[in-house]
């Protein structure tokens, strides 16, 4: 998203007005309304738009920044809280793994200015590497987690989370999921609170976690949890909705909407805070019904707690522990529990849908990198980014993908295992390299690993929709900033063999990779071309296939370029290829591969 677009999507609309907002936009609005002063994040689907929208509010109200990774962002927010202002960070669920180190200690320290962490889970794994349940992190860190069910609650819970944070001296989670983050509904807006900053608390016993201080603070944390538990039984975050029948439903977040869709008249305990749980409220609700059924996505956090309380709760016996819920899945669960009739499955259409997997864009500069890697027949440790798409045919060239920044150290381990006969290559994008690729590259140099690191520099954080990072020379608000020079950075780490190569020159690319792989020790190749979508959509003059010259060898189809399809013409029993001129950006990779020189730029009309 460009800076101009951001301005358009999040102008500070007047209080009292209702406007359609996604969950992410509503969280951002809540942050602004709460008088928050400092916000930092690293992009990650489905959380990215939160910080983009925070940056839509005036710079004099709130400092908003992209940080190099989630732990850095968390530490920036913690620093702002120390300094006495309200602070905010947002991340996707796996970002919490990165930020957790700081979180676990900061839970002991507590806040000065209120600190709120929006964490967006991805049940169903729409765009992630796993579907972990962040509520467990809240329980682990012993901090409260708020779970809004729609846009209005996303705004109100986020705003209230800051006050809760300050009142109970604790960081507070606001947990969203993909469905909430990306659903638009009407949200009534409020005004921005005037929050005057507090002075720094000069309290080393609270702010400096040496063992003696930490031992005492652990007790403070446990006492805090007890006070929160007591308060939450009477809090407006949690509410009982009386209904008909003697089966009570306990639910939270987006699953609440599915419960209301399926059983609009059942008694419901809607939990707005899912950790700590309101002991007294739950016991009273359970006593008012004959059966308690818990409907929660992913882990049985509420259900297990109820069982530990001695309440015969049912839940995961009927509802799956994996994947995203839907009204259908909740209906099926209630049907299994004997509360609804099974769904009628009278779908008249019985045919398997065509497969349409996501692909690298037409002209994507990663395409040639993986074409060259495939030809190299290397063992490739991949990383997180658009380029993970190279795991499928026809590029099919990455062998592993674990987590952000894992590729380089994975390659070190493969090399040190001594079992691999193929050359070992790590592929990592520019943003991911800055996120967590530098320490492992130092590790590789330090331990003299015989690997090649292929930095795929497309000048943007592409996968999440085009966010700036320290290698783009621009900040979140579009201001100019010093630009990381990858070539000089890598050299300064002690890598002797470093080469930069144009992603649209496939022959040189392949030659550079061969030389890098032949080099003993760490070698680095940096491919260099901007993403075709962001920050500006690139569209050059399109290419075309001269049908009379095409011999249908399909060499160009090995690129997997979405602008290339079969034409209606044949050559020796195979379709010739044609290029969609609207999709083609003129990168010329297909022309470089063409065995019969049939691909040329479309001739200008005379």
């Amino acid at each position, binding site marked *: 998203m460009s800076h101009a677009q951001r301005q358009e999507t999040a102008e500070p609309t007047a209080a009292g007005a209702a406007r359609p907002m996604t969950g992410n936009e509503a969280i951002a609005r809540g942050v602004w309304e709460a008088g928050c002063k400092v916000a930092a994040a690293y992009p990650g689907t489905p959380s990215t738009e939160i910080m983009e929208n925070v940056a839509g509010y005036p710079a004099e109200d709130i400092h908003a920044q992209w940080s190099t990774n989630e732990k850095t962002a968390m530490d920036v927010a913690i620093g702002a809280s120390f300094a006495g202002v309200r602070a905010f960070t947002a991340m996707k669920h796996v970002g919490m793994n990165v930020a957790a180190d700081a979180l676990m200690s900061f839970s002991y320290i507590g806040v000065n200015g209120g600190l709120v962490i929006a964490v967006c889970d991805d049940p169903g794994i729409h765009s992630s590497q796993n579907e972990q349940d962040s509520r467990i992190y809240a329980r682990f860190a012993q901090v409260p987690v708020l779970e809004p069910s729609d846009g209005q609650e996303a705004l109100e819970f986020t705003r209230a989370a800051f006050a809760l944070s300050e009142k109970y001296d604790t960081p507070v989670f606001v947990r969203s999921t993909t469905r909430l983050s990306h659903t638009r509904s*009407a949200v009534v807006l409020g005004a921005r609170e005037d929050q005057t900053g507090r002075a720094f608390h000069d309290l080393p016993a609270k702010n400096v976690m040496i063992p003696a201080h930490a031992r005492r603070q652990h007790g403070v944390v446990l006492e805090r949890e007890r006070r929160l538990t007591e308060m939450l039984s009477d809090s407006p975050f949690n509410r009982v909705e009386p209904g008909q029948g003697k089966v009570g439903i306990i639910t939270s977040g987006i699953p609440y909407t599915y419960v209301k869709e399926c059983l609009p008249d059942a008694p419901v305990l809607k939990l707005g805070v899912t950790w700590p749980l309101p002991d007294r409220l739950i016991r009273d609700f359970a006593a008012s019904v004959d059966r308690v059924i818990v409907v929660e996505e992913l882990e049985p956090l509420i259900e297990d707690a109820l069982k530990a309380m001695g309440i015969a709760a049912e839940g995961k016996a009927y509802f799956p522990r994996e994947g995203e819920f839907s009204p259908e899945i909740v209906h099926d669960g209630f049907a299994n529990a004997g509360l609804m009739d099974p769904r009628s499955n009278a779908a008249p259409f019985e045919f398997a*849908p065509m497969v*349409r997997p996501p692909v690298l864009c037409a002209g994507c500069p990663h395409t040639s990198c993986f074409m060259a890697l495939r030809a190299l027949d290397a063992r490739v440790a991949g990383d997180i980014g658009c380029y993970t798409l190279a795991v499928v045919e026809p590029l099919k060239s990455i062998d592993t993908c674990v987590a952000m920044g894992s590729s380089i150290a994975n390659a070190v381990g493969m090399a040190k295992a001594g079992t691999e006969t193929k050359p070992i290559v790590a592929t990592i994008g520019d943003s991911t390299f800055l996120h967590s690729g530098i320490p492992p590259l130092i590790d590789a140099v330090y331990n003299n690993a015989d690997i090649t690191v292929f930095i795929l520099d497309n000048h943007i954080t592409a996968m999440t929709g085009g966010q700036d990072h320290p290698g783009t020379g621009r900040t979140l608000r579009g201001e100019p900033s010093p630009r990381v020079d990858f070539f000089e950075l890598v050299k300064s780490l002690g890598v002797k063999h470093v080469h930069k190569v144009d992603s649209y020159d496939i022959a040189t690319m392949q030659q550079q990779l061969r030389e890098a792989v032949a080099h003993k020790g760490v070698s680095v190749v940096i491919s260099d071309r901007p993403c075709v979508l962001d920050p500006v959509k690139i569209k050059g003059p399109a290419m075309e296939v001269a049908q009379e010259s095409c011999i249908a060898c399909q060499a160009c*189809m090995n690129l997997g370029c979405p602008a290339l399809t079969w034409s209606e013409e044949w050559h020796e029993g195979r379709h010739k290829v044609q290029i969609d001129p609207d999709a083609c950006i003129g990168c010329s990779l297909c022309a470089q591969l063409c*065995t019969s020189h049939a691909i040329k730029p479309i001739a200008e009309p005379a």
Partner: protein
Amino acid sequence: MADKPNATKNVLIVGVGGQGVIMVSKVLAQLCQADGHDVKQSEVHGMAKRGGGVFSHVRFGPKVWSPTIPEGEVDILVALEWAEGLRWIKHLKPDTGTFIADCQKIVPPFACRNRKRGAEPAYAPQTPEEIIDQVHAGYVMDATGMAANLGNAKASNTVLLGALSTVLEFPEDAWQDIIAGTVPPKSVEINARAFAEGRAWAQGGEKRIDVTASGLHKAHSEVHHPQVDTVVEITAEWCKGCDICVKMCPERCLRLNGQLKAELALPDLCTGCQLCSWLCPDMAIKVTNTPITEPAE
């Protein structure tokens, strides 16, 4: 859900990344909200931008709970691409659902991977005629062609909005106002015309198929491609083991043997495509495809 009355109206909008699915759903959601309905619009970002399928649920009524539409509960399915429409068609209400689709195909590279002789794209084979017979109401239109005639094929989503407007009860000006406020200023006029054209076309009847659709979805080529016997001959003396054929073979059926000479290791996978022969710098590979003579009847 199915077993109880529900005043919520459900519209599912589907297509391929970059077609404007989100624009269509935003226009509809704004219109419903301006008309006083509770509205939820839900989509999933992420991979969608990269040529994968995109879908957006729009639900409106007095009070909307679930952001997504249960299977079999879709009142109107708007498909910006033919095969994407077929992917979601089983979500339509069987008795009352309306299907509105652009007949244009976007054939993904994944569908063009079979190098066997006579292979056709692995694209949905269903024709508009056989689909429209099975829905309550259906419009299969050449929205892309209509928009292209107006000067911009990208306005196909607005053509479909015009068709959608005939099924929902909002005044025409309300649609036009919101579209004008959503699209870039320089394309306001073309979108207004695209909307009007789509609307006029769909007012022609409850089950309509554009003539272009029948042309686009005709049965696959009648051309007969005789099967062949493929022989790959590699002249070992000329092969210097450069590996190019091994690395570039689309079926990965070649390898270097112990003497570092290329050989056909997996003949069953070979499709006789001849790429190795064209790429070999030493002209060491010869591929011969001999048609198999079919026995006379």
